[in-house]
């Protein structure tokens, strides 16, 4: 059976059968393949080396799954000779073919030159001769053919030739520019197609009951040697009241035997849907403004309860070669892409988050050239986006002895995305000293992407200015100078003895190839009213595998106005590592030593820690200090399912050992289930969600009596995963209250594949100190199927690959359905509802047919019996000729 014309043809017959010998791994599809013999081709004229008896053949040359082209090739035995220029062109390799037949290819990155000279029968790679085997190349009609095995070695490729399928496939396309471009474009599609986290399918209110629940944190601490005289306690309770969080706590001040306690109470509420005021707090808490202090009173603000880490988008522009692709990466993730214009100019958007933003700009040339640039963008938490305005106001009684009453008004405004202005006033009333009113004004911003400036003046307090320079992740320099005022008697916000401080620190990674080698330096100078204190420090940290090495120098200088200047130098060294133990377990160990003035031993300490179980850890430390002598510390901590426990024994030299036991935990009460539960906590200032995943038999979205819960369903709540219990119940605590979280059920976790969640992803707001109830319905889905046929002169024939759309008449949402090659279509997972099935106009273009009906109604009812609906026949008839109408 010969189907070849000039070249080899093939008929592939594929049948299969498998695994009737139950059920061995030998099960594999059988595929019979019958290939015709190649016909002889004209003898090819070669210069050197001579290859005889070559057969001409047509091959499907493929670069992985990315590109293919049918090419004329040659064959000798089992070796394929591929047209090198066509292979390089298909792989988008930068290459030229000279009149002499010499092929020059440049492989990026690295600009490695590969030369193939058919006349001399030579090849070279990166300037070095490449040893060619006999009969490596052939030339015919000006086309250079090279043995596939030689191409593999020259270009570091893997080429698999399949004579039965007549294919030559480059198995590692990522080696070639085409492969890298396709990978890049896939990333681009993900970036450009991404719409952030997307909108949820629904935002639904939670059933919170009267209270929703309550939470109590408790803690007991005692010295085992003297329990009655040393026991102390702390207990705090939280509950939802008027949608806010009421929290009360009591703790003993020192041992309970002293009878002194402190009771705190706070009520906080959040209005996330308002812009002019978002939070109110009554009772005990902290003041507003940049200098927090404990206060009993009121606090109001329009600042968000939880500030999103995302700040905004900044632009980054530059210039590369015309037409180059440029992409922006953060943490190895592509976040923006663009293509340089005809002049090579480009601009990218950098999504910025509060903190340090390390970005990498990678430019790709058309032939695989790669140029990488790194940038660091600093974004302090005191910055606001352009035109954003926030205010805070607080006032009340001071909780410490420095003042009787205090107030703060704090205003912040984003002058631009780069500069933020902050102003306000601090106020204090005092019992014996005069009251203070201290206005302040500050500005912070960036002048360059890696240079951040900040300054602030506080009337009667200080003048501060600072700069941070971090051009890349390898270098960061920070310096702050503060001059303190002495105009105020008994200042509250600074230490009256201070006159000025200067802080400078440097962080440097000397070698880009060894980012785990870090050098740090710091200089701190404090000018006091009694003299000057200085600290100079330098340290090197190097991580090698599981072992870290630290070494450093520290100089303390005390230069009093009265008395002699003293200087002390310390030389320190430490090794930290994991020591392997039998059974693949590891022991954490650390040793430290410190020398005074490079000669006398000042301090030595060693510690080991062992993770006994996933929740229990034992740590033993011992050391010696020139002043305090030797000591031994043994600590055992346990994180159990119902409580946390810390037991510590400290045995200093010459003093009896002291054993302290601390136990902590949380008690939850869930109003919906009327259940009490224990957890290790802490649980205050958090919230929870609980409910059922159930089969909504009647489709009303509410769990009615008799509707069963689903066992083992995976519920994802705010990124955490929980499984429902045997009754279908889910329960999650430790969520941020007042904040929205996304909740969805993983359909693949539902045992019955016919069941699908009624809603995809829903968004709910977490209530404070209680459980919000969320019952998640699932319902029986259905399949639809049918076929599309068209009228032809021979009768009806299936129309393959027709594009259909299934439109939900309730929501208007469409779902694409594509027919198979035999004209049949099929779709599963259709939720109950009323739908219409339509064939898209694009499927009919050029066919001259129209559907008998514009739309086919599809009614899916809740149907646990699983009986599928009848098949749908979409019949296409010849379109009426123009003019027929009317």
């Amino acid at each position: 059976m010969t189907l070849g014309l000039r070249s080899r043809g093939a008929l592939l017959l594929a049948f299969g059968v498998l695994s009737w010998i139950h059920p061995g791994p030998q099960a594999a599809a059988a595929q019979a393949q019958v290939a015709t013999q190649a016909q002889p081709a004209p003898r090819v004229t070669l210069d050197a080396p001579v290859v005889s008896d070559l057969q001409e053949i047509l091959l499907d040359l493929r670069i992985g799954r990315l590109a293919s082209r049918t090419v004329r090739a040659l064959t000798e035995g089992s070796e394929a000779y591929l047209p090198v220029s066509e292979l390089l062109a298909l792989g988008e390799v930068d290459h030229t073919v000279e009149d002499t037949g010499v092929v020059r290819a440049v492989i990026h990155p690295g600009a490695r030159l590969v030369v193939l000279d058919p006349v001399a029968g030579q090849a070279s790679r990166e300037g070095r001769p490449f040893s060619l085997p006999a009969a490596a190349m052939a030339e015919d009609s000006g086309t250079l053919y090279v043995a596939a095995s030689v191409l593999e070695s020259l270009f570091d490729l893997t080429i698999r030739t399949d004579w039965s399928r007549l294919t030559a496939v480059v198995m590692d396309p990522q080696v070639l520019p085409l492969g890298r471009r396709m990978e890049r474009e896939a990333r681009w599609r993900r970036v450009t197609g991404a719409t952030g986290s997307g909108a949820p399918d629904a935002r639904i209110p939670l059933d919170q009951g009267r209270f929703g629940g309550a939470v109590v944190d408790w803690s007991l601490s005692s010295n085992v040697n003297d329990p009655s005289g040393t026991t102390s306690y702390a207990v705090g309770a939280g509950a939802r009241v008027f949608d806010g969080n009421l929290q009360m706590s009591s703790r003993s001040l020192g041992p309970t035997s002293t009878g002194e306690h402190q009771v705190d109470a706070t009520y906080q509420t959040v209005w996330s849907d308002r812009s002019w005021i978002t939070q109110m707090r009554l009772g005990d808490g902290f003041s507003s403004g940049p200098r927090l202090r404990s206060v009993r009173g009121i606090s109001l603000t329009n600042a968000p309860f939880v500030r999103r880490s995302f700040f905004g988008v900044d632009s980054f522009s530059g210039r590369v070669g015309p037409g180059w692709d440029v992409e922006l990466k953060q943490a190895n993730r592509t976040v923006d892409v663009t293509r340089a214009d005809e002049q090579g100019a480009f601009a990218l958007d950098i999504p910025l988050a509060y903190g340090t933003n390390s970005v990498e700009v990678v430019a790709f040339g058309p032939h695989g050239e790669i140029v990488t640039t790194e940038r660091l963008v600093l974004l302090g938490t005191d910055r606001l986006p352009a035109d954003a305005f926030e205010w805070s106001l607080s006032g009340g009684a001071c909780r410490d002895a420095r003042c009787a009453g205090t107030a703060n008004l704090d205003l912040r405004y984003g002058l631009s995305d780069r500069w933020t202005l902050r102003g306000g006033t601090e106020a204090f009333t005092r019992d014996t000293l005069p009251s203070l009113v201290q206005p302040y004004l500050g500005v912070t911003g960036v002048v360059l992407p890696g240079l951040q400036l900040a300054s602030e003046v506080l009337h009667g307090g200080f003048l501060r200015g600072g700069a941070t320079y971090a051009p890349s992740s390898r270098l960061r320099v920070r310096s702050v100078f503060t001059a303190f005022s002495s105009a105020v008697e008994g200042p509250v916000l600074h230490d009256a003895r201070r006159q000025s401080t200067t802080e400078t620190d440097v962080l440097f990674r000397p070698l880009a190839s060894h980012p785990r080698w870090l050098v740090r330096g710091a200089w701190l100078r404090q000018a006091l009213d009694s003299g000057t204190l200085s600290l100079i420090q330098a340290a090197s940290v190097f991580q090698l595998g599981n072992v870290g090495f630290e070494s450093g120098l520290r100089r303390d200088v005390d230069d009093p106005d009265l008395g002699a200047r003293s200087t002390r130098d310390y030389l320190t060294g430490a090794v930290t590592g994991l020591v392997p133990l039998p059974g693949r377990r590891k022991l954490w160990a650390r040793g430290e030593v410190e020398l005074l003035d490079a000669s006398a031993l000042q301090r030595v300490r060693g510690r080991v820690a062992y993770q006994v179980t996933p929740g229990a850890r034992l740590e033993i430390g011992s050391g010696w200090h020139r002043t305090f002598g030797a000591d031994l510390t043994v600590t055992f901590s346990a994180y159990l399912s119902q409580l946390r426990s810390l037991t510590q024994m400290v045995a200093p030299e010459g003093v009896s050992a002291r054993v302290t036991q601390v136990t902590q935990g949380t008690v939850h009460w869930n109003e919906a289930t009327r259940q009490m539960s224990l957890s290790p906590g802490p649980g205050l200032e958090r919230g929870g969600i609980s409910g059922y995943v159930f089969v909504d038999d009647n489709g009303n979205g509410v769990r009615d009596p008799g509707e069963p819960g689903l066992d083992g369903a995976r519920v994802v709540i705010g990124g955490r995963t929980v499984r429902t219990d045997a009754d279908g119940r889910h329960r999650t605590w430790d969520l941020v209250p007042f904040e929205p979280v996304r909740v969805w059920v993983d359909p693949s976790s539902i045992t019955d594949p016919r069941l699908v969640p009624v809603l995809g992803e829903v968004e709910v707001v977490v209530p404070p100190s209680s459980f919000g109830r969320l019952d998640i319905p699932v319902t029986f889905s259905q399949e639809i199927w049918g076929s599309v046929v068209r009228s032809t002169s021979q009768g009806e024939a299936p129309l393959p690959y027709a594009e259909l759309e299934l439109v939900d008449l309730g929501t208007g949402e469409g779902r694409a359905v594509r027919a198979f090659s035999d004209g049949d279509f099929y779709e599963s997972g259709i939720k109950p509802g009323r739908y219409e099935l339509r064939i898209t106009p694009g499927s009919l273009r050029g066919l001259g047919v129209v559907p008998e009906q514009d739309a086919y109604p599809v009614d899916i009812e809740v149907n646990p019996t699983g009986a599928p609906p009848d098949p749908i026949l979409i019949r296409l008839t010849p379109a009426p000729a123009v003019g027929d109408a009317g």
Partner: protein
Amino acid sequence: MMRNRLRTLALTAALWFGVLLSEAVAIVVAPTAVYLADDNPSAAVSLYNPSNDPEEVTVEAVFGYPTTDEAGNIYLHIDPEGADTRSAAGWIQALPRRLVVPPGERRVVRLLARPPAGTPDGEYWTRLVLTSRGQRVPVAGTPDTAGVQVGLELEVRTIIAVTYRKGAVTTSLSVEDFTPRIEGDTLVVHPELVRGGNGAFIGRMDVILLDQEGSEIRRWTEQVAVYRTYHRRYAYDVSGLESGSYRVVLRLSTERDDVPAASRLPAAPVELAAEVVRP
């Protein structure tokens, strides 16, 4: 339609004897055996398309099991009506039943067993037939018509076993006839295996050839699946064996590495021995 499909299935079964298995498969299916139970009635089957073209896949459950004909040849017994009391084909549901697996991607077909009420305890069987067909245009040519490549791709069927166990399931094996003999250079072993209990005996068979001193000379290992009876004829090359008397030991057990330990049915191993003479 169903009859035609079964005919095609039978054809592929017949071809199995004469066709060498090719490494090229349209889709890769895992696992090759699925075990369901009344307390675990669902499972997932993964389909991977290693080819360069999208593959259309149709999933169908049919009742069948391997057995042997009178000549000792193995074949897949198909019951098109699914009326066998051990058939689960009627109530094992696959979702989706038709799908497209894009090149280089993976899709999942989920199975759900819904036995009718009152189904007695025991083991029930079905075969999942996954028929794949490439969506590639079958004929491609070069623009200058200098040459033509013709590719005609037909269906590739992958068949995996699905077993459902309800209640207490046991299995055992007895050997009704074990009379090995040496014919020329071939050792012929043709044991008749009869399954006991209410579950299939899925295991291995070791055929060990011992000399007169009891030393092992040759060993052959086979996988056996005895759903009811199994009377397969095995022929082993013993060329080079000196004339004389030998002993053939037959060992059968359910120890089989390719069956998950949790899914193996325990059964007492069976061992028999018989004398053979090489003239």
